């Protein structure tokens, strides 16, 4: 029973931590972030396994974690509010070529990020060519040209 409690606490803590760190943190993974994620993974592993390195404990823990994930996605599909709470919502950060500065500041987005996305996805050269730029739930920026 203890492994379920441990896995549940860690799952919820990581979910809250990543949600609190904002959408952009997830999409802008640098080499250093990748190494940091590996260290986080290692730390979580030690906390979850404790001194029990048995195969059955690993199987039970993985089943518990994947089970939570499936449960979260099931409830997200069922209830919009739950989906918004666990996955966040998309945010319009540019409208008719005009950046929405307060939103961009809150989401830690710069003009360069929007332009980069516009170049990569639509081949656009300037903000004036963009009707909407949307910061998606996963941290990517979608660009809709005029």
């Amino acid at each position, binding site marked *: 029973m*203890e492994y379920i409690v441990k896995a549940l606490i860690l799952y919820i803590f990581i979910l*809250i*931590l990543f949600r*609190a760190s904002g959408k952009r943190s997830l999409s802008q993974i640098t080499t250093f972030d990748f190494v940091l994620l590996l260290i986080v993974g290692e730390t979580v592993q030690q906390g979850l396994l404790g*001194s029990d390195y048995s195969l059955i404990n690993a199987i039970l823990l993985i089943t518990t974690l994947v089970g939570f994930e499936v449960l979260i996605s099931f409830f997200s599909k069922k209830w919009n509010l739950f989906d918004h709470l666990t996955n966040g*919502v998309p*945010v*319009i950060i540019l409208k008719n070529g005009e950046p929405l500065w307060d939103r961009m500041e*809150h989401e830690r987005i710069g003009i360069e990020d929007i332009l980069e996305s516009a170049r990569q996805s639509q081949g656009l050269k300037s903000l004036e060519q963009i009707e909407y730029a949307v910061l998606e739930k996963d941290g990517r920026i979608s660009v809709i040209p005029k």
Partner: protein
Amino acid sequence: MNSKNISHVDELYEFEQKEIKVRKFIWILLVLLWVSGSVGLFGKGWLSGTKIEGNGYELEYERFLRDETSTSIIIFLEESSADTIEISFGKKYVKKIRFQEITPKPANIEASENRVIYSFPASENTMIIYHLIPLNAGFLELDISIGGDQRYVKQFVYL
């Protein structure tokens, strides 16, 4: 909210504004958590370590422990005229922990109905260290008797 187009995304911004406030609050909580951890509220720090004095001894222990993580109970003994000193633990406490090492090694260990008794030659030892590991999370009552002076101390084991 029924129209699933770009204006629907704009309607969701109200939720995002609330979320921004919640995010700030969460970060305050996380900083508090970090500070609490740093000062020992979750064990291994100055808020956790404490000592009590008794008749001819001083007992050092931690208030906050961590599940399956080593901790110590340190007993400083004053000069005694007795040949041996007996330190005993209640069986209820012994069942919830695992002794890793006792320094110095006791001359004798015996179990009575409710206690486990460790005897040490009094003249040789001024400091006795019990290294132990708590086996379960939750409240723990350290039931220790040093030279016949019984003490009950509350401890908490974090998961």
